[in-house]
């Protein structure tokens, strides 16, 4: 069986958790003996049995692939939808229903009904896929992200003073707001990550703050070496991620694998994944509230309960393989 992986946003334009997810899933599937190719859109001779699209494929592509005999699987991150309020989601749901009645042809949401399987990362996303997009329950599967072995095997070390936040430096992740709160409450935070573009004013404001407050904000850019990253989590006092929108944060799972206490934005994905095993901060809280949550977390971190360990990529691959074979 050959699986073709497809994705619409090139990695050269947008790095982040989804890139790691796709790369690690492919590696783990290959290690399990499955043939996995990247879909080369220009190659009319490329063949496969399953098209696994990361994102939402156009319904016409789904139809054409199925006509060629491929089974189509889609994994979409409902990052924005999953972070909206109930009213907002309700408006979206009813607007979609109305649009479907008027003219469903070409509506991208139709892909949820046409593909052979839909993969959600969390129970929460599966719920959204069924209720907003009408994905048939019997075709919905929950397969979470995995974590690389090095995060589980990194040796235990004494925990230091820094809270760590690993994220792309962009508005959605609220890294600047976190840094401002850290400075305001004198809590040391180490930010690991890079922006989509260095000319981004949001990034420049963050970098300026980090330069001005080196005792509270540590910033040395991203860390590409995964073992080094695991070592950083092992040494960290805690992990912080206060994004306004998130699907299932890979860096939070990696920190959890390193037994690092978690402070997360209070969003449904985080509650359904970590429940009472993480601390929460309202995602749109102002500077004072965020600072207070940060200060309390820094003080309590050494005594907080540990989060349940996440899956390893090979366990994720085993679940996916089972799904492909069933199709």
């Amino acid at each position, binding site marked *: 069986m050959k699986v073709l992986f497809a994705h*619409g946003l090139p990695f*050269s334009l947008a790095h982040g958790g989804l890139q790691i997810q*796709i790369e690690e899933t492919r590696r783990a599937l290959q290690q399990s003996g499955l043939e996995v190719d*990247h879909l080369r859109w220009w190659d009319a001779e490329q063949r496969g049995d399953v098209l696994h699209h990361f994102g939402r494929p156009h319904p016409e592509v789904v139809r054409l692939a199925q006509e060629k005999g491929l089974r189509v699987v889609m994994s979409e991150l409902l990052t924005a939808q999953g972070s909206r309020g109930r009213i907002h989601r309700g408006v979206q749901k009813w607007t979609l229903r109305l649009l479907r009645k008027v003219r469903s042809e070409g509506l991208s949401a139709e892909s949820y009904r046409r593909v052979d399987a839909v993969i959600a990362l969390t129970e929460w996303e599966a719920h959204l896929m069924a209720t907003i997009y009408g994905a048939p329950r019997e075709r919905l599967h929950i397969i979470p992200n995995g974590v690389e072995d090095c995060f589980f095997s990194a040796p235990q070390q004494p925990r230091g003073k820094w809270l760590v936040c690993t994220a792309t430096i962009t508005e959605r992740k609220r890294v600047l707001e976190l840094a401002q709160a850290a400075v305001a409450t004198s809590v040391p935070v180490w930010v690991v990550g890079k922006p989509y573009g260095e000319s*981004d004013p949001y990034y420049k404001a963050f970098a300026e703050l980090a330069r001005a407050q080196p005792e509270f904000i540590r910033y040395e850019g991203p860390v590409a070496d995964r073992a080094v990253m695991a070592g950083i989590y092992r040494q960290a006092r805690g992990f912080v991620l206060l994004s306004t929108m998130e699907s299932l944060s890979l860096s939070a799972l990696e920190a959890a694998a390193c037994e690092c206490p978690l402070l997360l934005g209070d969003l449904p994905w985080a509650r359904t994944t970590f429940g009472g095993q993480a601390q929460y901060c309202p995602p749109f809280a102002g500077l004072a509230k965020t600072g207070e949550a940060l200060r309390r977390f820094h003080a309590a971190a050494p005594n907080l309960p540990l989060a349940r360990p996440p899956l390893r990529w090979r366990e994720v691959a085993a679940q996916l393989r089972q799904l492909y074979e069933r199709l």
Partner: protein
Amino acid sequence: MKILFDHHDPFHFAHGGLQIQIEQTKIALENIGVEVEWLRWWDADQRGKVIHFFGRPSDVYIQQAHAKGERVVFLELLTGLGSRSALERRMQRAMVHCARRFMPRGLIGRMCWDSYRLADACIANTEFEASLMRQMFDAPVERVQVVPNGVEDAFFEAAPVARGPWLVCTATIVERKRILELARAAAAARTPVWVIGIPYAESDAYFREFTELVRQHPEHLRYEGGINDRGKLAAIYREARGFVLLSQRETRSLSSEEAAATGCPLLLSDLPWARSVFGDSASYCAVTPDTAVTAQALAAFYTAAPQRPPPIQPLSWTGVAQRFLAIYERVIQETVPR
């Protein structure tokens, strides 16, 4: 200067004119010294000065490319939109305006309407499509460029031969191209039509109905599948009495321009794209479900074809590549990506 070509409909799933257009544009650009690569979505290290997207990229795509210092030009075929009536288009424009005001941003974002305002250049195949981009999507006038399709040299160079009895139709065998309706009209008018092309899938009911009709009318319908050899296809156009394409929707038919390059008379659906490309140098047939009306137009064209003047000649792919190069150079010269 390195150009990255990107597209979201894999050629393996959907062959057709757009595939030829993309492949020939790449070859022609390379022939005039421009470095062009297929965009490998999984390659985080791949860099280019300009991304040339065939289709409509999302606004996020364009914003991320700009953040990386890359320019984005896109060429979209407005096949469906361009084939709607003026009234339908006015209604659509009104709906777009309402949607922008009242619909959730998440849903609006899916439509990628803002891409027309964000991209460094929007490329239309025809003047008509350019006007649609400006009117329907508020594309800035100065960023909309018209670059037609090209035709391979083989079609210009094919040696003239005596024209035979067959009208030729080259198209994917799918509802939108109305091949079955053409075949029915040909059988009714007893006009010989040779259909060249393949379906997206042989299991398609429309295709099976067409092949069944061909079996019943071998004297008026000829079908032997697709022809990959471009020299052979050029020779077929040279020998054909005329070229017919009665699609319901079309952007700018590559096959009709290939036929035009060989001097083959054209009978086309009466749609704005065709009028704006060929004007009075082609014959037209209304898009109608009435087989008798189509049959009558077909018979009239069959009779008149030998006396028709040759259609307007298309550009070669080299000419197209030079136009693209000028656009790439212009967007690169703009110091700050939009």
